[in-house]
């Protein structure tokens, strides 16, 4: 077990492969080119811009809530870009960056928070399950899915995202046990953003999350979750482990929730301000930018073009979000079950006739 894998230092220097914990993971990003790194920078920049748009739209009353990922862009893009098309991801509710990597139209995320749908994307099409708001529940779905992959002889691996707070839920601990004994091809990916709403990680456990895997009998690694390169490398390693039939792996990505838990939260009631400033200095996007600047890869023009792309993606998203219609009232009766339910059918008929009478 390793302490903390870091391939880019906070001031943007590439760590060299040596004898440290990094050595094993360097190989997984040995072929990453400057262009690839620019791609990661672009992803993170766009994702942050979309996230800001979510916050802005909530303030303007266009979304009822937004759960910001700010600060977690590297953890999400690094792991999301490690996935292959055949892989399946099981998110919680904050994985907008992973959704981006899986090709989910961000409008569909916004629809959830606007209240026009409960989950508008097709999980099978994107290899990205619906958001899971009931904390921890998705880790069991991921475990079962991975058990299915193993039984089908499928190629893909499965990744399950969850938070530091979620690690206390029974479901998550049961998922650890099951995935372990069934050798499920599953990567448990914990974004330890230090907080579960107002509760710091020390309220969840006395040991670091990654160390908890040991008791369940599978390997784990802790990665600097604000280092996109290290997260990419470690997740690739973990997915390979899983695919190889070695069973599950736990990755703990150390990161930080820069914004309130959601737009409904007020962290000034519980969070020390100096902690925030410490983590702001570890900003994941600045880190990669500094690195690419120092290498002469990131020019002013390139940076401007990335910013312009982010802005136009956000502007387009905003326009489409504002145009999102409310579904027709009787849509609430759709898809309750596969087979028609006579009670629901009767209620729909009464609803339609009463609404008609009231109009």
């Amino acid at each position, binding site marked *: 077990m390793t302490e903390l894998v870091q391939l880019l230092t906070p001031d943007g220097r590439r760590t060299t492969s040596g004898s440290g914990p990094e050595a094993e993971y360097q190989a997984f990003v040995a072929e990453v080119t400057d262009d690839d790194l620019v791609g990661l920078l672009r992803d993170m920049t766009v994702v942050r811009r979309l996230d800001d748009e979510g916050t802005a739209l909530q303030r303007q009353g266009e979304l009822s809530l937004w759960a910001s990922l700010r600060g977690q862009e590297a953890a999400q893009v690094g792991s999301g870009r490690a996935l292959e098309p055949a892989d399946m991801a099981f998110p919680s509710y904050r994985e907008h960056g992973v959704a981006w990597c899986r090709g989910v139209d961000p409008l569909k995320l916004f629809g959830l928070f606007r209240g026009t749908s409960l989950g508008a994307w097709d999980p099978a099409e994107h290899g990205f399950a619906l958001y899971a708001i009931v*904390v921890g529940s998705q880790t069991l779905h991921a475990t079962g899915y991975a058990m299915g992959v193993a039984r089908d002889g499928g190629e893909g691996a499965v990744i399950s995202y969850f938070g530091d707070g979620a690690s206390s839920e*029974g479901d998550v601990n049961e998922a650890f046990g099951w995935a372990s004994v069934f050798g499920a091809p599953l990567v448990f990916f914990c974004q330890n953003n230090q907080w579960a709403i*107002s509760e710091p990680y020390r309220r969840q456990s006395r040991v670091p999350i990654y160390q908890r895997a040991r008791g369940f009998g599978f390997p784990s690694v802790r990665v600097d979750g604000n280092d996109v390169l290290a997260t990419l490398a470690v997740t690739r390693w973990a997915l390979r482990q899983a695919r190889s039939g070695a069973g599950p792996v736990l990755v703990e990505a150390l990161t930080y929730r820069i914004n309130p838990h959601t737009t409904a939260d007020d962290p000034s009631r519980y969070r020390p301000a100096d902690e925030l400033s410490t983590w702001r200095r570890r900003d994941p996007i600045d880190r990669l930018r500094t690195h690419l600047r120092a290498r002469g890869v990131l020019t002013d023009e390139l940076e401007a073009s990335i910013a312009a792309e982010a802005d136009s993606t956000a502007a387009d998203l905003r326009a489409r979000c504002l145009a999102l219609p409310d579904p027709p009232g009787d849509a609430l009766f759709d898809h309750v079950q596969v087979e028609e339910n006579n009670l629901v059918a009767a209620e729909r008929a009464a609803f339609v006739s009463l609404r008609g009478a009231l109009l």
Partner: protein
Amino acid sequence: MAPTASASVRRTLTLAKALNTGLLEAMKADPKTVIMGEDVGKLGGVFRITDGLQELFGEERVIDTPLAESAIVGTAIGLAMRGFRPVCEIQFDGFVYPAFDQIVSQLAKLHYRSGGRIRLPVTIRIPYGGGIGAVEHHSESPEAYFCHTAGLRVVTCSSPADAHLMIQQAVASDDPVIFLEPKRRYWEKGEVDTTPLADLPADLRTDLGTSRVVRSGQDATLVAYGPMVRTCLDAADVATEEDGRSLEVIDLRSLSPLDLDPVVESTRRTGRLVAVHEAPSNVSLSSEIAARVTEQAFYHLESPVLRVTGFDTPYPPARLEDHYLPDVDRILDAVDRTFGY
């Protein structure tokens, strides 16, 4: 804004603040009372119902728990066996289900199993119901599950005055209580008698199980609880203005056990009863009310007991919730129909 101790005075409070003040009284009344839940400490709960209480009573008595509902209830049972009086907060209705086993198979049954030796004075507070434009799992009405379980008391308040009184009664009860808080009404204000429970007359101290006529009328009866009491009162106003009908409104307050005597008595007078709740209708409180009132007031009924409820679908996305939730129009439509038989 730390809560202040209150002598016997009438104050205008929001329902949320009334709960906060009631909890403060409960904490003062019994040093064995502990509050436990996610974010109940420094944050004061996501709805601030426990605001300021950790500051006053310390971390030993107002406990920020790890994120695990089954453990919140399961450990509350253990604490209760050790003589404590836990008040658990479940953050939202949709998150009580991980604790379902601990509630229905453990908490509800230990008194029975132990031949009455074990008492579990555990209160489980749950903000419930919709109407706040929330995301999934934050708007549900799970009361029927708990009413279906022997051994639990299930109560809900509809006004600040009741919030203040009933939370103290719930905590003082030696039986487990599911205490449902109508979250869409948290910010509504009303006058509250802040007399601590112990200083109230005996009949008021122990009336947790009683329903109440909250508006008198002659033409038809509406029975509701929690968030729908306000909606029924609004409907009654409209009925008076627009149809010249006088509707009686009854607030059940206790969902299990039910106190249906006032409902039966009222229905015998008006001949018409409409039961209203946000929860779906299938095997619900209104099913039970309709059955029992029909048994007890059959010869007085001018119409079948009608029901206005949420639909038998999952709670829909927020932009559709106004269609899902009973409103004045749907209630008055049902009242109209009771006159059509």
